[in-house]
């Protein structure tokens, strides 16, 4: 690699990445302090390890020319499928879902986190080769089938959240790859309408006679996943489980007000009223302790981070790089939308962590790998003509 290529690096992107990682440590140093009473800094320490190793991963991936991955596309795709199959057959079950592969008692990975990266890499290649051939509805079928395999395996775990991330990546990449916006958009709206009607039929109890047969239509979803949808509509309907969690999260964020209750000054998080407040609900702690100023600042960091990512993507050398960037942006955006939306009550609970902030090794590594890919694209960007 050309030494001069280093000058291509997007300094703002790197700066905001580090700002987010630093924010993660600051936030976890208050949000996770009461999770393990005998070891208050456990999560700050492990998160530091994940960040440091994550940076190494990002650098290594950045150094490798992303175009090389195209040669291994089917190997990667196959490896991904095998990994997800291993989870289904040999994985460890926690909280009703099988998502983990453990190497030792405490060290394990969540393959679905890495599946996102693998699918971005391989799908970008798949689409890049079909450039300009996405004008017809029948052109949409092969890409859809390409995504369907890994998606079904993840849905089977079950992990509705990550499945939806795949949907978001699919939509984002298809759109940027040139799918006819009217046909593709119409198809999406139609699909959404079908999902809506099916859900409505499932929950309906007083249908007219000619629709009786469809009343309480069975769905291929777990009970708790459906409950979350009901609870999302009316959190107060369930004051013990997820509904309670949403309420607690709303109370936490809302009670933060403009300035927040101060670092470690919250009650909702510090006194354990908030569930999972170092992972899925970490944003609620930000809202409670740092207030509107804190949440807006964090969103601002994310926004600049994403806009710089898009900028890097626009300047990509080729279609493949552009689609990788699009996949990464779609993934991060969807994560942020769903996580922040869930904690502030405008999205159903799906158990998706806040990227780069929530405690967790697999997510940190896969996010850092995604950043590494963006950097790789950035380093090899198109020479602008002046």
């Amino acid at each position, binding site marked *: 690699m050309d030494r001069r290529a280093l000058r291509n690096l997007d300094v703002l992107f790197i700066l905001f990445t580090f700002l987010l990682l630093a924010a993660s440590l600051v936030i976890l140093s208050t949000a996770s302090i009461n999770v393990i009473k005998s070891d208050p800094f456990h999560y700050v320490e492990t998160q530091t390890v994940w960040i440091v190793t994550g940076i190494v991963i990002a650098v290594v991936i950045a150094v490798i020319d992303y175009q090389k991955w195209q040669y291994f596309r089917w190997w990667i795709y196959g490896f991904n499928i095998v990994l997800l199959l291993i989870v289904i057959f040999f994985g460890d079950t926690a909280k009703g879902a099988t998502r983990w592969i453990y190497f030792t008692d405490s060290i394990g990975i969540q393959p679905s986190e890495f599946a996102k990266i693998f699918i971005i890499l391989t799908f970008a290649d798949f689409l890049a080769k079909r450039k300009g051939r996405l004008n017809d509805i029948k052109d949409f079928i092969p890409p859809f089938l390409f995504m369907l395999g890994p998606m079904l395996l993840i849905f089977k775990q079950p992990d509705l959240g990550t499945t939806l991330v795949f949907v978001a990546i699919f939509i984002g990449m298809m*759109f940027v790859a040139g799918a006819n916006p009217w046909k593709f958009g119409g198809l999406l709206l139609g699909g959404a309408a079908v999902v809506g009607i099916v859900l409505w039929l499932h929950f309906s109890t007083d249908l007219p006679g000619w629709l009786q047969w469809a009343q309480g239509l069975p769905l291929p979803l777990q009970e708790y996943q459906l409950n979350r949808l009901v609870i999302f509509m009316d959190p107060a309907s369930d004051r013990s489980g997820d509904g309670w969690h949403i*309420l607690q999260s709303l*109370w936490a964020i*809302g*009670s933060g007000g403009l300035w927040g209750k101060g670092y470690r000054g919250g009650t909702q998080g510090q006194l354990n009223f908030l569930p999972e407040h170092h992972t899925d609900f970490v944003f609620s702690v930000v809202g409670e302790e740092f207030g509107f100023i804190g949440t807006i600042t964090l*969103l601002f960091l994310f926004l600049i981070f994403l806009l710089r990512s898009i900028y890097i993507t626009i300047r990509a050398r080729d*279609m493949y790089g552009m689609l990788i960037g*699009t996949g990464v942006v779609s993934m991060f955006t969807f994560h942020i939308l769903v996580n922040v939306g869930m904690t502030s009550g405008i999205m159903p609970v799906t158990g998706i962590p806040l990227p780069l902030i929530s405690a967790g090794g697999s997510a940190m590594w896969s996010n850092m790998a995604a950043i590494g890919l963006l950097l790789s694209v950035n380093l090899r960007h198109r020479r602008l003509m002046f």
Partner: protein
Amino acid sequence: MDDRERKPYTYRLWGLSAVVVLIFLILSFNLWRLQIAQGSYYSAMAKGNVMKLVKVAPTRGDIVDRNGKLLVTSIPEFVVHLNWMDLQQAKGDEWKDVVKQLAFYIQPEWPNANQTVESIAEDIFANIQNHQWERYRPVIILDEISPELQAVIAEHQEELPGVSVDAIPVRSYPETTLLGQLLGYVREISDPEIAQFNKDTDAQEVGFEYAQGDLVGKMGVEKSYDFWLRGKEGVQQVEVDNNARPVSKQIIQEAEAGKTVQLTLDADLQKTVDDTLDQVILDIQKQNPAAHAGAAVVMDVNTGKILAMTSRPAMDPNDLIGIISDQMADKYWPQDPKRASEAASLNRALTGLYPPGSTFKMVTAMSALQSKQTTPYEQIDDRLSSLGGRGAQQQGVEEWGGNYFGLVNLYRAMAKSSNIYFEIMGRRVFDSNPETIGQVAREFGLGIESGIDLPGEAKGISPSAEWKKTYFTNIHENALKSRDEALAKIESDYAPKLEQAAEETNRQLVQKEKDAEIKKINDLYKLRTLEPLEWQAYDSYNNSIGQGYNAYTPVQLANYVATIVNGGKHYRPFVVDKLLDSRTGETVQQFEPKVLNTVSVSPEILDQVKQAMGGVTTGEGTANWLFADVPEFTGGGKTGTAQIGSKDTISGEIYNGVFVAFAPYDNPQVAFAGVVEFGGHGGETAGYVAKAAFMKYFGWKNTNGG
């Protein structure tokens, strides 16, 4: 790719940026809505999560007699408390070791002596579990601990974080049985009582509401003055975590101790009345082992203040604190309905309804004089024949003890307690207006609720044709209903039997059997409807001499005498004189005497009747001997020997001794009423109690130097 080729993709990526910005705008707007627009609402919700208000129990007020003698107080009892907040100081799982250690130390005083340390620790864990939703409150692990155990725990305080020995107030009645039923006792409120107590107007005024777990007075003054005695609960704000464990505490409002309640009663006088009544009952028991009960009331005639109130069998409220043994439960509330009347928890002075016997004769006299049916000087020949013809004589009651007192006017009749005289006078009054005697009785507080400041008083029955009609109509209707039901049952039972009877002779047998059953039912019905609904001559005779339907409480009888001798003012009787601040001793509220009504009987007639009562305890009176050895005595009274049941039944042979009295004669101060169950003659039983009470109250000595 060249620029021209890139262009559409670049546009699409700009579109993607727009979507990203839009998403962030939506998220930001929602956060603004939550944190700025509705921030205060969510603040309140979050605060409600962690800030729990905990009540701090106030000290219950004392009860003292009119001279300040302590009758009820709260004494500290030492308990072992376990406090989560402090127990949490132990690292990790070490708090479990603390509990085991505690179990080891308290094992010697654990209620169940055979339990191992491990099993005690299990019980303590269970106890903590039971209180897990209010962990901010300390849990009582063991109560009534000895000073030795206190010392042991103090010594090992370092290894027992969260364990503390605290004093909690427990009710104590130092005078044991003195005024037991009047004072009452305190226990946890029952569900039906919550609504009942919340009707208390004083509580409603300040917005106080009784709730589950509150300790309340269950009877007597403890109950009727519960709101004043209990004081005001303090409030402590405790911050808790999601497991309801306390994190910090702050006192918002100090608890306010209850008021000291000062009674109108005199403990020394009470003791004299108690002891004398006990002695009288003991003496009667020698002849009649069933005798065990009685009641007496001493009251200030010019105010309605109760000076003494006794009920036997006695009650010691100390028996009703904590766990009540089966033996005690049976003593105070016998399960056997036949022995229900023996309950020691009954305040017979207030709830016991007794036929007044001859002590009712003043009402008959006043009614006759007031309605001008007689004069004090009209003389009657004390013979049954004076009642009238054979019919009247059959319905009348003979002179008591087969006596003949010759010619009697009001004064002699009262002194001798002539039945004939009062039967004639009563008959005249009833004949002119059947409601008069009942009305006069009620003016003196007989047969109406006295309004005394104690819960559960009985109302009693004063004679009235109206009352009789209602009462027996009810009985007759019930008798008719059960007869019709029984007859219908016989019909349905015998219809198939008659059908099945094959031969004629057999059929006749069954028919005969059926007729016999019908006759039995009809006979029973006749017996139950024997009493006519209309007022009869015998009703007039019986009720005129305090038998018949008359039934009153000793409090009513004492108040009746008080009203006669104080010039006709019917006071509301009361037992609480004032409420005092428990710290300063200042009077917070003084309860004033209250005249309920002034009687319609003229002062002259009241004076004549009072004079007649004076004749009972002097001269040829039925109780002339009673005060013979007390030269200072002046006053009056009336003996009564009340037949409990109808003549010719077993209870017809049993008599309650009733005695009412007042003293001194000029400007009377106190009135007395007493009943000794199965006591026979009133003067010889309850009379002794009156004598002792008067001697104690006025400081009189008898000639024997006693």
